[in-house]
């Protein structure tokens, strides 16, 4: 119940500056148009590349831009800053679980961003380009995959944030995390364009579970056994990263020394 309140307050906090969020959505939309135009040219040269047709590729780029905010490609967790300043000591004093608290906060944020940041790019995409529509069943399956994507993304960002207990300067690690999240999620280029072994590796890394997999589920590229594999990868990474985060939380709790307390 407490966590529901945390999520609710997170939604309110992130909805506080709607104009700011919509301004960001404008940039996502422009990047969507540029990416889509480039991919149209690529698919014109190579029709059917990676099992996608041109409409799939266009839909992919706009969905990817719409997902940037909900899965928080840029920005990590606010927890990082709280660890650096020592405010995390207050968080640890609360009679709640640190990881679950921040998960609830992040789910609220993702929900809010889905409304404020994802609507505009999709609306413009529908007006300007041919877009792949999908039935209610596939849409439902994709929404499940989207929820799993947020969980994988949170699991990863929580682990990165907790490294702050040992590193003291997060910016180097944050940059590495940014590079891997941008490149291996499919945001820069759909993973189906990656050749041979690079594509195969990229598909099983955790970041595929944040963008490539939910979009493939939406496009209907994962059905039957493929759908189970897709969900399986996302659940596997979400659980693995969550457990890793748990372990680090315990270690960090032992390590933390609060001066002047």
């Amino acid at each position: 119940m407490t966590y529901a309140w945390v999520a609710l307050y997170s939604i309110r906090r992130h909805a506080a500056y709607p104009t700011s969020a919509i301004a960001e959505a404008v940039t996502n939309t422009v990047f969507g148009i540029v990416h889509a135009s480039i991919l149209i040219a690529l698919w014109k040269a190579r029709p059917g590349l990676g099992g996608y047709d041109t409409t799939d590729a266009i839909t992919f780029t706009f969905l990817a831009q719409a997902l940037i905010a909900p899965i928080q490609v840029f920005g990590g967790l606010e927890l990082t800053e709280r660890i650096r300043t020592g405010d995390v000591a207050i968080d640890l004093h609360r009679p709640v679980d640190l990881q679950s608290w921040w998960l609830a906060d992040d789910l609220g944020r993702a929900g809010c961003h889905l409304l404020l940041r994802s609507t505009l790019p999709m609306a413009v995409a529908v007006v300007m380009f041919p877009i792949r529509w999908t039935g209610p069943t596939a849409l439902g399956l994709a929404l499940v995959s989207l929820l799993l994507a947020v969980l994988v993304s949170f699991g990863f960002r929580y682990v990165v944030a907790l490294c702050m207990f040992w590193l003291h300067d997060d910016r180097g690690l944050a940059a590495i995390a940014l590079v891997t999240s941008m490149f291996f999620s499919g945001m820069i280029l759909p993973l189906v364009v990656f050749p041979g072994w690079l594509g195969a590796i990229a598909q099983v890394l955790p970041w595929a579970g944040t963008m490539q997999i939910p979009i493939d589920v939406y496009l209907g590229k994962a059905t039957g056994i493929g759908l189970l594999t897709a969900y399986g990868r996302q659940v596997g990474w979400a659980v693995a990263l969550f457990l890793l985060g748990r372990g680090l939380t315990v270690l960090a709790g032992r390590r933390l020394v609060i001066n002047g307390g």
Partner: protein
Amino acid sequence: MAELLRTYARLAWTWSRAAAQYPVSLVLLGVATAAVTSLDIAAIGLMFLRTPRIAGFSVAEVMFLYGTSGLSFILSDILMGGAERLDEHVRKGTLDALLVRPVSPLLQLATEDFSPRRFGKLVPTTLVFALALAHVPVRWTAPRIAMVPVMVLTGLVIFAAFWVLTTALQFVLVESRGATKSVTYGGAFLTQYPLSVFSRDIVRGLTFMVPLAFVNWEPSLYVLDKPDPLGLPGAFRFAGPVVAVVLCALAGPAWKSGLRHYRSTGS
């Protein structure tokens, strides 16, 4: 002008010395910034593994566009990119502190947090550009050779003007930074590719409304000897410097009028 440059250099040097207090962090961040910049060229490389030409351009030609766009944008970002944080100063009220100092606030904003790590971005871009110059199928004549530095400089000035224009807009619309990134960062991204990938309406918009086509597209058509998909007159290929001057003539007054309209929160 000389005084302005001297002040800029002194402020940049001061901030650089501050950044150098944490040398490991500085080096790591330089490497990391270079890695983030390299993602775009990695994507271009992966696409050309799948096809020899995109929108009529070969990999060497696209690398030429990537190099010229990258050098222009990164240099403008190093020099002026810091200015875009004006909104934070307006919100926090710290702009007032900048205004009472006897140096142009724009200069102070641009140099703020200046760090040598920003040069990290230049390394991969310069390497790609050198590779492109070696492989691009051009019969190098004196005017073509001269055009290359001219277009990098033109692009630099155009991007710098856009930094100032978008920053000036923040005086009026404090929350506009998220959207105006599409002109600066978005412009840097789209000029890496031949504009022939875009629909004709978009190219027209990029020529006559937001003239990013003059950063490197029009001059590259001359250097690479390509036909213009819009069929514009040949003079457009050499119009870059004119466009850059016009944009600067707009950016200066825009900044001044923005500054005049600034009302401190007074708290």
